[in-house]
């Protein structure tokens, strides 16, 4: 019985068939490279739709490879049922035992392609890292952080844990800039200036509302916190927007002498920012 199976396997894996399989694999790889290249060119030409286009490729890649494998098995190899079952059984056992984590990631990757919690180009907060999704593979997702580090996250852990998506497939996202001021400052004028600073920035997406919220807080003394919420025109410019708003606001405060209302609080406005 075993000898029969080995004989059949030897017959199946003839040199010509292996060559044919190699050619099919090469052609599939080439096809995917062309599709990828064309998509990149399209993204370059229509940057406004880069998130939608970026989402398409993982699905195309999965389907293409699946079709390729199906063709190799049933179109080229055409193995007898006994061999199919034997190979599937062995593979199942091997995969089940040796690659539990990998298979989990793979299944998670497939689930993520068809029911994506985020897409390529989204800004995602996960496991202490915040960055742009640059690649959505079958088993891992690659993030590029704001410090330009590449972070590799296994897909299964993304599905098992909470991931925050800042823009959900849109190019604009909310940027929150916090500015701490001495409590003695003229609140009304400071709020108007903060609002104007946000509107004046060329990176602000004015189609969505700009808000300024005033909060009171205590940090070695009473402070006023201005929370400026504005949408950035493109997720890649969120740092530029945050910095620009802060710069404009502080400069306007200095120009009006608002930061020197009381000498004991002369350290001026303190800023921090976070992204929602």
């Amino acid at each position, binding site marked *: 019985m075993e000898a029969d199976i080995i004989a059949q396997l030897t017959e199946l894996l003839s040199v010509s068939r292996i060559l044919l399989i190699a050619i099919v694999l090469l052609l599939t790889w080439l096809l995917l490279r062309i599709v990828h290249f064309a998509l990149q060119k399209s993204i370059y030409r229509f940057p406004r739709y880069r998130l939608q286009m970026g989402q398409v490729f993982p699905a195309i890649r999965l389907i293409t490879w699946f079709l390729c494998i199906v063709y190799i098995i049933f179109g080229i190899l055409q193995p007898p049922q006994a061999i199919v079952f034997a190979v599937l059984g062995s593979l199942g056992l091997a995969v089940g035992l040796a690659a539990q984590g990998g298979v989990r990631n793979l299944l998670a990757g497939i689930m993520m392609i068809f029911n994506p919690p985020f897409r390529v180009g989204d800004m995602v907060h996960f496991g202490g890292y915040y960055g742009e999704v640059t690649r959505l593979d079958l088993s891992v997702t690659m993030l590029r952080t704001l410090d330009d580090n590449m972070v590799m996250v296994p897909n299964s852990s993304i599905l098992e844990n909470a991931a925050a998506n800042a823009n959900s497939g849109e190019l604009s996202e909310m940027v929150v800039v916090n500015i701490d001021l001495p409590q003695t400052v003229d609140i009304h004028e400071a709020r108007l200036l903060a609002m104007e600073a946000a509107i004046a920035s060329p990176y602000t997406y004015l*189609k969505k509302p700009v808000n300024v919220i005033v909060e009171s807080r205590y940090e070695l003394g009473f402070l006023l916190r201005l929370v400026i919420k504005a949408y950035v025109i493109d997720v890649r410019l969120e740092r530029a927007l945050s910095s620009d708003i802060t710069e404009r606001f502080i400069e306007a405060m200095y120009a009006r002498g608002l930061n020197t209302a009381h000498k004991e609080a002369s350290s001026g406005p303190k800023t921090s920012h976070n992204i929602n």
Partner: protein
Amino acid sequence: MNDSTPKSFFTPLTVAGTRLYRQVLKLFGISTIETTESIKILSDLCLAQTARRTRYYEEKKLPGALLQAFSVEPLAAGDARFIGRESELERLTAAFEMWRAGHNSMIAVTGPQGCGLSSFLRQLEGTAGAGDTLRYGKLTRRPYDINDTLLILSEFIGLEQAAVTTDELLEHINNLPPSVLVIDNGHFLSCRVMGAHAAIRVFGAVMVATQQRHLWVLGCEEFAWRRLNYIYHAERFFTDRIQLSMFNEQELDECLSLRQQVSGVVLNTEMESKSREMQDTLELPTLYKLSSGKPDFAFFYYLGALQVNPENKQLDMSRSVALDFGALKSLISEELFTLAEVAIHGRLTIDDHCALFRTSREQSWLLLERLYQQCLLDKDETADELGYRLVPVYSEVISRYLTNTNYLY
């Protein structure tokens, strides 16, 4: 091409196939245009800048009457070259009636740059009734603070000395006889410079507070109007907004024919029938497609296609060649942001650019000059300070590109 020319069954398929082939090549960054031709086209792009265009027409020795007829300056009330816009003028007349009947009214007239907004506003003199007083004003500078607003509006209503407070200005405006107050170039109100926020609010407040007595009509370019809407919700304060669009093919045909007729210049007799034929069957759709119905862009192509025959001094017509806007693709982010803000503000000075982008004067100057040398910006020396604006002829193409690349919305 004549309608009677027999067409092969495969012709549309061949044309579609060629287009698809070119698009695919274009996608991969391969140009199908010959090198020599592309150089010619690129130089043509610069010819659209106002100063160079004038020189170009002089060198071509096109008749002055023809250039006068195809002038892109706003048309005065009753000018025979003003065509179309019937429904828009009817809406305006209805608004006038409402105002005369005692209803508060404020009208905004908006449209893309170059659609004929100023010409349309100029026609109001003909639309207003005999007893109506009409005051037409064109903004030529931007209000950066409340004092600027008071000064601009004081000049507009003819005060010798500018009002010092808003109340004083309101009093003066309310003392005027009931009038139709038309303000053109409303894009000057769209200003992102810090401090201008209050100035624009005061401008709007004065209009709203005096609408019971006067009918305000504000003409504003489309993108600037959108900006005013996003920031100040301007549309809520206006009773009606009349939106002008570019010409359709029929209107463009009428516009070109009328101007040609007004010029009194006759094309080469042989060419005339040929050009009519071209205009009917080939040239007009091409012109319309190339210009997207933008009159000054169509004039540019039309005049560019005319040649003075050196032998008999008559005018011949050649085919129009599309301009190549490949220069746009080589721009970097800060240049695209600059173009977007120029498109919205209508005109930016170097100081405006410094304030908007927080750059040094030298940086701003360098950037604006580079875009000028790329023939994407034109210099506007009509005001005291030198300003840069999109080359008016193809501003629509630049705006479309900026919208597509998410810099303009």
